């Protein structure tokens, strides 16, 4: 079969690899009909995530048709059309049973490696480094899905791939980001980053009752999307001398009730903090750039929540702990417990509460994926989201 493989920084290629096969009783094999490139795939492409190996198949946003089942999978049939959550989880451990699927105890074959770094291991993920299990991803013609009896959700009649594909990751990720804020009526939510996760965070904040959402980015077309499709008030941070004052002014002197960092470890930005981060990172003294996170903590109103769907992998520097403490902030973060949100969000799509297709800017074949990565990285051709059809 053909698959998009990682060979190093800025080097992904479509290779012919052995077909996916059933390895465990709870496995299924999916013929991939749609798969997307995620912003977090760019962290791999840019070489920010450790423990990648040459030849790893990328892709954690994929859906398709069941073509083979392991002996223990009884709830799926050959031919079923399913969406696959990007986190792999057993459904049986303490964390799965408490809807904390991204913390599954049993799905990461390289748990020991992760424990050495993080103390305790997160769940396995598709195509996202060996620290997260080393599972082959779904930017391929076929994909192996472990614990297929618990993860994938069947797609109801009448919904297209494009409508439901983002249930794999970015829609639940944006939704969890808003959910983690504990939004109350009247709340204002500020969202850093108007990429696809930011867009879904904005729309989810409204679905959860936010009065107003302020969205920030420096890319004009993403800000326009946030304004026109997601109905946010927009701020181009590059045009601001003092972002804190701007947000304070916009919120009647209170600051946003909640702040969402939908950017993560490769934050761009302006000012001294950003130069400091870039310098340290180049000198290998810090692994993650935290400009956005610092701003979110700085700008958040008293007693608010800073919710972090953006990915971090290592150490942060100049973390404004005193600011967070003084204002009594709550920080919530982590990979998405996708399985928790699959059914309710599928229902939202069915009812027409939200149409996730608005983030798609490009459709491509799998063969075009390497060009797609480059385009997505450089944000050329107004690229916000690429869907691949293998």
């Amino acid at each position, binding site marked *: 079969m053909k698959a998009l493989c990682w060979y190093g920084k800025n080097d992904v290629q479509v*290779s012919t690899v052995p077909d996916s096969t059933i390895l465990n009783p709870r496995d299924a094999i999916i013929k991939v009909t749609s798969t997307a490139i995620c912003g977090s795939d760019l962290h791999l492409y840019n070489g920010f995530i450790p423990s990648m190996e040459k*030849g790893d198949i990328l892709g954690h946003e994929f859906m398709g048709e069941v073509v083979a089942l392991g002996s*223990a999978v009884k709830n799926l049939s050959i031919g079923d059309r399913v969406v696959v959550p990007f986190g792999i989880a057993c459904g049986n451990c*303490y964390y799965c049973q408490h809807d904390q699927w991204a913390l599954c105890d049993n799905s990461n074959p390289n748990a020991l490696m992760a424990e050495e770094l993080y103390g305790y291991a997160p769940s396995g993920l598709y195509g996202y480094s060996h620290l997260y299990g080393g599972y082959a991803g779904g930017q*391929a013609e076929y994909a192996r899905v472990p614990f297929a009896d618990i993860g994938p959700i069947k797609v109801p009649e009448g919904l297209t791939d494009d409508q439901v594909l983002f249930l794999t990751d970015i829609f639940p990720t944006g939704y969890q980001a808003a959910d983690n804020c504990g939004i109350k009526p009247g709340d204002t939510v500020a969202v850093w980053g108007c990429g696809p996760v930011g867009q879904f965070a904005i729309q989810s904040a409204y679905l959860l009752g936010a009065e107003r959402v302020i969205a920030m980015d420096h890319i004009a077309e993403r800000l326009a999307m946030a304004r026109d499709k997601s109905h946010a008030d927009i701020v181009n941070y590059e045009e601001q001398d003092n972002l804190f004052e701007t947000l304070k002014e916009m919120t009647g002197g209170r600051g946003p009730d909640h702040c969402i960092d939908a950017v993560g470890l490769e934050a761009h930005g302006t000012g001294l903090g950003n130069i400091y981060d870039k310098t340290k990172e180049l000198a290998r003294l810090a692994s993650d750039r935290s400009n956005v996170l610092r701003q979110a903590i700085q700008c958040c109103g008293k007693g608010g929540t800073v919710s972090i769907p953006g990915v971090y992998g290592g150490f942060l520097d100049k973390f404004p702990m005193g600011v967070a403490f003084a204002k009594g902030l709550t920080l919530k973060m982590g990979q998405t417990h996708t399985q928790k949100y699959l059914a309710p969000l599928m229902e939202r799509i069915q009812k027409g509460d939200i149409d996730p297709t608005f983030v798609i800017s490009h459709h491509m074949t799998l063969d075009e994926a390497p060009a797609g990565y480059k385009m997505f990285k450089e944000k050329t051709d107004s690229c916000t989201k690429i869907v691949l059809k293998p």
Partner: protein
Amino acid sequence: MTTNSTESTKASVNIAGTERWVTAFVGGGLATYGLLRSPAPGNALSGYAMTAAGLYLIFRGATGHCPAYSALGVNPAIEAEETSQKLGDVGIKVTHAVSIQKPIGELYAYWRDFTNLPHIMDHLNSVTVQDGTKSHWVAKAPLGRTVEWDAELINDEPNKVIAWKSLPDADVINAGAVTFKTATQGRGTEVRVEISYAPPAGKLGAIIAHILGEDPKKQLDDDLRHFKQMMEAGERPTTEGQASGRGPDKDQVK
């Protein structure tokens, strides 16, 4: 001052008698074995590592002080009497604990049937139960060889503890105990394993390389992780044999 220094000298001996001399002995063997290993590429590093580990054990045995025990705030010298009654006092001791989201009875029953253990302990080929309390264990050794021993059940309290000990003339003198305890509400069962072993002099090289492994603590960690995976998920997660764009060379990048 004097009193203080006397106390600190006393406190620094935190390894019990037999463990102390076995430690030094095994350390000497490891160090020698590490030095004698072929310096072929790829082997050199593990040889040095083994030598280093050996020298550490000699230090530990000679001084009666284990930095690791100190760091952990553990003083097995105090608990040695109780432990040795249960397990017999043999060489290297490793312990590990895991919480499993299953009722205590189910976990006890799985472990009590020793023939299940090769499913979770990859270094075991087989365990056969000979009669009520005796069992025969076959473990993998380098170059396709095996090491074998007979063991006897020395303690068995349903849903509480299972302990075993090798019989005289074993290739590897060893003993182990697993204890089960219901965790705090909704947290399943805590399973704690303690394993001790000491290889005899004659077969030191081969047995050390295999049974002690490069990291016995890690081996026990793996075994208990497999136990949890089998009991909770019904299978062990794997990526072995999955598709990839790797050729025969498995270059790790970054």
